[in-house]
């Protein structure tokens, strides 16, 4: 009971210290909202209005029909048409066009005679991902065009067709992928900053010594310092989830309980790592730098923007130490896939282990690292 009182007193003190300071308040509230908006709107792999240039040497009806299909797609926008080969290079070089479509002289003739008519696509590969996505869009349009051409000629297309359905993210919007990830990202950033600075700041101000000479046990100090991180993280995560559902219309299909179990375990590990950085750092600058050095790789190696499966095996092993990796599966699992507890079990226990281990280490450092 006394123990509980001590922890409560500490936790209240931590909250007051955080929230009474204008600067810390700013850190907790300002950047996360700004980041949610910027990430939410800017971070998308979907392409809109890719600038396309048409080099049509055929000028037949079939060619025009193809061009109008491309121009009609929201993904592409025909910016200009050219009539000479030499105009292609400057347009691509100067980034005025991402894609140049060259329709050869015999395009319509070939089509009418049932021969295969080649369509040449020249892409700017400087951003290979953009190029690849644009190509996929183009291919889909072309498949469609082929099918309707054959139909209009009274011929059937290939008998074997693909009937594609995408699960969980039916329209393949990358926003649905990115925004649930932001829940994990922002929660991690804020929790880490709140906790990573907490001990370092007290060490710099000399108040940590003052704490250590009180009858508080290191475990009590540890718990007292962990609580604000977890509470703030929980509020933050809740705020972002509410915004995500109401503002960005991301579905929340699974069990909220499973999501919150994941959040709590994730916060536990984030707080543990934060306190560990804090206990190692002698000054606030080192703590900020340490947090930064942890954050950057852990975001990159989490599957937030690029899939873990594409990484080399060695790097993949490294990601097992990263709590964000597990949490991203939980958020996306619950929001998009509608997962419950059972399916996420394999994500829960690694986070719990990381959390407990890092907290234990941080607690040990409190007493044993004096300089």
């Amino acid at each position: 009971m006394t123990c509980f009182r001590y922890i409560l007193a500490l936790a209240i003190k931590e909250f007051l210290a955080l929230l009474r300071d204008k600067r810390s308040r700013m850190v907790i509230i300002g950047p996360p909202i700004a980041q949610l908006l910027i990430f939410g709107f800017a971070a998308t792999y979907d392409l809109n209005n890719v600038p396309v240039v048409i080099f049509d040497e055929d000028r037949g009806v079939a060619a025009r029909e193809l061009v109008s299909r491309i121009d009609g797609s929201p993904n592409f926008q025909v910016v200009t048409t050219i009539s000479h080969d030499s105009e292609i290079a400057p347009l691509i070089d100067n980034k005025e066009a991402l894609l140049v479509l060259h329709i050869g002289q015999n395009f319509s003739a070939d089509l009418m005679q049932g021969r295969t008519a080649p369509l040449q696509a020249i892409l700017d590969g400087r951003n290979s991902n953009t190029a690849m996505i644009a190509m996929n869009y183009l291919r889909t349009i072309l498949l469609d065009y082929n099918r309707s051409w054959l139909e209009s000629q009274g011929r059937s297309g290939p008998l074997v067709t693909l009937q594609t359905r995408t699960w969980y993210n039916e329209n393949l919007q990358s926003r649905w992928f990115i925004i649930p990830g932001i829940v994990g990202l922002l929660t991690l950033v804020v929790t880490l900053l709140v906790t990573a600075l907490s001990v370092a700041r007290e060490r710099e101000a000399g108040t940590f010594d003052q704490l250590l000479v009180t009858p508080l046990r290191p475990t009590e100090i540890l718990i007292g310092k962990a609580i604000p991180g977890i509470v703030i993280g929980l509020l933050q995560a809740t705020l972002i989830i509410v915004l995500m559902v109401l503002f960005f219309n991301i579905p929340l299909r699974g069990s909220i309980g499973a999501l919150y179990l994941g959040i709590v375990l994730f916060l536990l590990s984030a707080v543990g790592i934060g306190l560990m950085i804090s206990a190692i750092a002698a000054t606030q600058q080192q703590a900020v730098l340490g947090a930064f050095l942890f954050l950057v790789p852990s975001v990159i190696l989490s599957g937030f923007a690029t899939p873990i499966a594409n990484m080399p095996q060695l790097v993949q092993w490294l990601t097992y130490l990263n709590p964000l990796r597990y949490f991203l599966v939980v958020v996306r699992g619950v929001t998009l896939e509608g997962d419950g507890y059972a399916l996420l079990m394999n994500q829960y226990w690694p986070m719990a282990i990381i959390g407990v281990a890092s907290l234990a280490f941080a607690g040990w450092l409190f007493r044993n690292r004096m300089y």
Partner: protein
Amino acid sequence: MRLLGMIHKESLQILRDPSSISIAFVLPVVLLFLFGYGVSLDAKLIPVGIVIEQPDTATQSLAGAFERSEFFQPYHFDSIQTAQQMLNERHIDGILWMRSNFSSNLLAGEEAPIGVIINGVDSNQANITQGYIQGTWLAWLSRYAESRGHSLPMPVSLEQRVWFNAALSSRLFLVPGLIAIIMTMIGSLLTALVVAREWERGTMEALMVTPLRIGELLAGKLIPYFALGMTGMLFSVALAVWQFEVPLRGSLWLLMVSSALFMLVALAIGMLISIVAKNQFVAGQLAIIVTFLPAFILSGFLFDINSMPEWVQLITHLVPARYFVAILQTLFLAGDVWPVVLSNMGALLIMLLFFFTLVWRKSHKHLE
């Protein structure tokens, strides 16, 4: 002499401070290796489930096409339920489902659809997976048609030619863009921190009462960090070219000139932040929010600017890294494309003048 003294002092401090060195050299290496080797948008060996309800030669040859592909790692399942279960548990990313009437329909000359289910959570990967499946399917179709003695009815076929990065390797565009991020970090974050540190430790007050002119004070800070940033840049370029085998098709001198221009802009922003913040904590926060994150997200380094909403696109015009990323990707992969390089350098020059005027007007030798 005063200026030389300042430069000498700053250089000594940089050399003795482990955190400067780590931001200038260790972090770039870590980032370059992470992005160069660790991060890739190019999917390899996508695990797919294949369900064949009635095996025969047609389905075998189709499954064989997927097994031989370098993009897929196929697993066979007996029923669609098991496969869906596996998809649900994230063991596989996609399913190809040939129903029991597949072959009979095919023989009867009726349409025989292959059911494709893709996990769309990661939409980008799903798109790529879909593209690979289409490609494999088309290739199989034409081979299947050939084997039966007639050709595939294909009215229009696509011949793609990708310039500058024929293999569409994402490393070739991530690594040059990363140089912009690294220079932003050295220029803005590090400079903001060190100038703020002078305020915090009271050394600024001692500097101010010396006859040092404000211009000398600024130049004394700028020159060493400029040198540090350019060293970091050359170091990253060397790594990019030799370690990651990114081609440098443009000329090195143009790369140096444009990097110098960008470095000055980054430094000016760093200075401005430290003048406003005057303490390391706030300076660090501001630098990350104002320079680092935008350089990451709004520069076109990772996400395509043209696809952002109109108002976000307007904001990206205020991000200096946007111009530099464009220059870098062009110089590395395309070559000296003057219109691109010049227009972006022009934008950087305008930013430079703007920020330097601000720095100049904000700095004075008073404590308030």
